[in-house]
Every structure is written in C-alpha cells, then in structure tokens.
C-alpha cells in the first residue's frame, strides 16, 4: 500500500510545518507583545494587515509571494545574490508559505492572551525586583501561555494543510517540495486511488493525534 517513497511527503510535511510554526510562534508572540502593550498610530490598520493571510485565498497569497520572492520578483534576485537563498521550488519556499498562513493564528491568540494578563501582576513583579525581560518571561508569558498554545496548535494544523500558496511557490516536486496535501492531490489527479487512500489515512491519523494531544495539554488542571 505505502512504500518508502510515500513516507517522504510525511517527513517533508512535518519538517516544513514544524519550522513554519516555530517561525510563526516567535514572530507572532513578539509582535503580539508589542501590539498588546504599545499604543501607536495606525495600530489597528497594521493589525488588520497582519491578519490578512488568514482570510485571503491561498492562491492570492501564493501570487503575492511569487511577485515578491520569484526569480524576477522584488526581493528574489537580491536574496539569491546576497545570501544564495532561493525560495521558488524549494522546501524553504514551502516553509515561507506555511509560516505566513500560520502567523495570524498565533498572533491573534497571543495578543488576546497577553491583553488578558492583569497589568497589576506585572507591576507587582517590578516592585519585587524583576527586570522587564524577567517580568515578561516569569509572569506575562506563563499567564498567556495557554491561549497562545491553543492558537499555535491551530497554526500547526493550518501549516500542515497548506496547499494553494505552497503549490504556487514551491511547486509540486516529489521528494523535494511535495507535502502530504500535494501528494494526495497528485494521486487523485493521476487516478492512483490506492495511494490516495493510504495518504489520506495517514494524514487523518496525524490530525487526530494532534487534536488528542492538544486537548490533553489544554485540559483545565484538576
């Protein structure tokens, strides 16, 4: 049913999704902190822009990405010349696409969670001698962790399922950029039902596992 070649999409999907989620997590929490604490002009507009990838059709997103990082895009040539980084048709491009769609999920949930933290608690920490980084890591972040984690798990699932933008920017190259979603698409297109069935079963098993783990993690204590 499944041979060695079929595990490649799973390995690739996990690699891409984990990396993309990590990027979305760090970026999302950092920006959420700024947005939750600092009032600056245009904050709401910028928040809306950062949330756009969540509502934009993936193909539109894919197109914008091509315009920016394609061989003849705004940043593409510069990235290649300066860093030797190519994003089109590479798994790194897939990471970029997945990270962008995952980001708003982390950002929004982290911002809400951070805003929920009582400022009095942070003030108390300061009177007890904590530096600002200590206040963030010892008080603010732990209290915002649950909400942020919930958003992050959603982000991971979204990254795993990314298809449209990934197809456009990373292509559908077996073994190199063919994630699980693309592999299923391929199998259906080629009429290979056996492979499609097996892959879908695999993806479903992974998704169910994620859901079970996440509900355990987020279960109310006691």
């Amino acid at each position: 049913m499944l041979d060695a070649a079929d595990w490649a999409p799973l390995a690739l999907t996990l690699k891409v999704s984990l990396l993309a989620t990590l990027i979305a997590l760090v970026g999302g929490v950092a920006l959420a902190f700024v947005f939750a604490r600092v009032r600056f002009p245009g904050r709401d507009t910028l928040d809306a822009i950062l949330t756009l990838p969540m509502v934009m059709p993936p193909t539109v997103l894919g197109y914008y990405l091509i315009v920016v990082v394609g061989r003849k895009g705004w940043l593409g040539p510069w990235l290649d010349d300066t860093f030797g980084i190519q994003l089109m048709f590479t798994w790194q491009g897939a990471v970029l696409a997945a990270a962008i769609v995952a980001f708003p999920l982390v950002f929004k949930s982290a911002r809400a969670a951070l805003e929920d933290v009582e400022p009095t608690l942070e003030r108390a920490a300061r009177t007890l001698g904590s530096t600002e980084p200590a206040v963030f890591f010892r008080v603010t972040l732990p209290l915002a962790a649950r909400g942020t984690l919930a958003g992050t798990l959603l982000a991971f699932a979204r990254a795993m399922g990314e298809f449209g933008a990934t197809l456009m920017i990373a292509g559908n190259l077996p073994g190199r950029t063919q994630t699980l979603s693309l592999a299923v698409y391929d199998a259906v297109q080629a009429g290979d039902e056996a492979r499609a069935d097996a892959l879908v079963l695999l993806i479903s098993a992974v998704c169910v596992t994620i859901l079970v783990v996440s509900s355990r993690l987020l279960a109310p204590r006691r």
Partner: protein
Amino acid sequence: MTKRRLPLLLAASLFAAGAQAEELIVSAAASLTNAFKEIGQGFERKHAGDRITFNFAASGALLAQIEKGAPVDVFASADQETMDKAEAGRHLEPGSRRDFAGNSLVVVVPRDSTLKLDGLAALADPEVERVAIGNPATTPNGRYARAALAAAGQWGAVEPKLVLAENVRQSLNYVGRGEVEAGFVFATDAAQDKDKVRIALEVPTEQAIVYPIAVVAGSRKPLARAFVDYVRSAEGQAVLKRYGFKSPN
C-alpha cells in the same frame, strides 16, 4: 389583460428557447486552449442558440474527472495514451474516436536568455539550473519529454533539475516568467507566447504527437458528434493550422 399575459408569454418563450438550445461541455488538453476557443466561436455561429463550455487542463487530469463521472460531452487529449486509457475504461462512445491534429515537442527559453542549446545533452550543463516540464504522471507533454530525455540518455542528469508543472501551459508560464532556464512545451504553445519565450531546441519524439478527439460515453447529444465533425472539417482544421498545429497524419 395584456398585463397578466406578458409575464406568462415571457416565461413560455424562455422555456421554448431553452428546449431548443443545447449546451456542450468539452474537455480539451491545455495546449488546445486558444485554438479551441476560436473553434468554439465558429461552431456557435453555425449552431445559433447552442453554447459550448470548455474545460482546459492536463489530459490526465481531464480523464480523472471523466472517470469520476464529470458530465463531459467531448474529450480531446494531447496524446494517444490518455485516450487509450479512456477507451479501455469504456468512457468513450464507441466509434466516435478520431485523430484531428498533430504537434511537435520543443524546448523554449526566456526571450532574453543567452543560453545556447545544441541538443538535449546541453540541459545537463550547470548553467541550466531548472527545467520545466508537465508532470509526467498526468500530462502528455511530460511523458513525451521524459521519453525524449531517456532516449537521449539524459534523464538521470536532468531529472534533479526538473520543475513539474500542472500542465503544459504552466510549463510555458514558468519559462516566460524566468523562473526556470528552459522548459518543454509544444510548438503551438511556444507560438502563443512569442514575446516572452523563444524556441531553443526542437525535440524529435519516437512517436509522432497526434491528438485524438472523441465523444464521451453517456452523452446522448447529437451536437457532440457535430462538434467532433466540425473540428475535423476544413474550417476547424484551418483554425488549428493558424495556431501552428500540424495535420494528424
């Protein structure tokens, strides 16, 4: 009295018009996009009131749709292999299959590219980082290209550089945008995008590239046969020729 009769009359006339006008769904290989659109217009002029809806994609993908029961009336593929599969799966109206056009395989490069390709072996050079072809699993274009590369002994060297496209038009698009150094397309596709790509190499194929067309089983529309005949008629063939297609023999 007129006030009450008018809407009724309107509805009745619409029904009457609908009863006579037919709609045809034609699934055709991506490389036929421009030629068939024009052929469709000519056909609609001849059959007033009837409408043709086209569905262009990779031949393999189109077959997959038909196999799943898509309500297609006519199927035109870019290779015999896909049509053979359709026939073996009993998706064709027996006796309706005909060949209607020929094509050739070429390698194109971006218009402003300085690459000189004197043979398929040149694709193995380091200057060529990426080569676009249609996905061999679903596109005739990809299969022809793979066969040609294998015959020239270059498949192993070129395969790691391949960027698989959904269909031949996407392969063309990649070259036109400069995302790849070179790409396999049909001669007719190259002619479509003259301002963005140029033909660098003509690729001889073991088998001649001949396009078949057939009525899909279960389509009980006499119009479907009429369309197949029209494509093979002098008018249809003239359009195809204008777009660079060769005659089927």
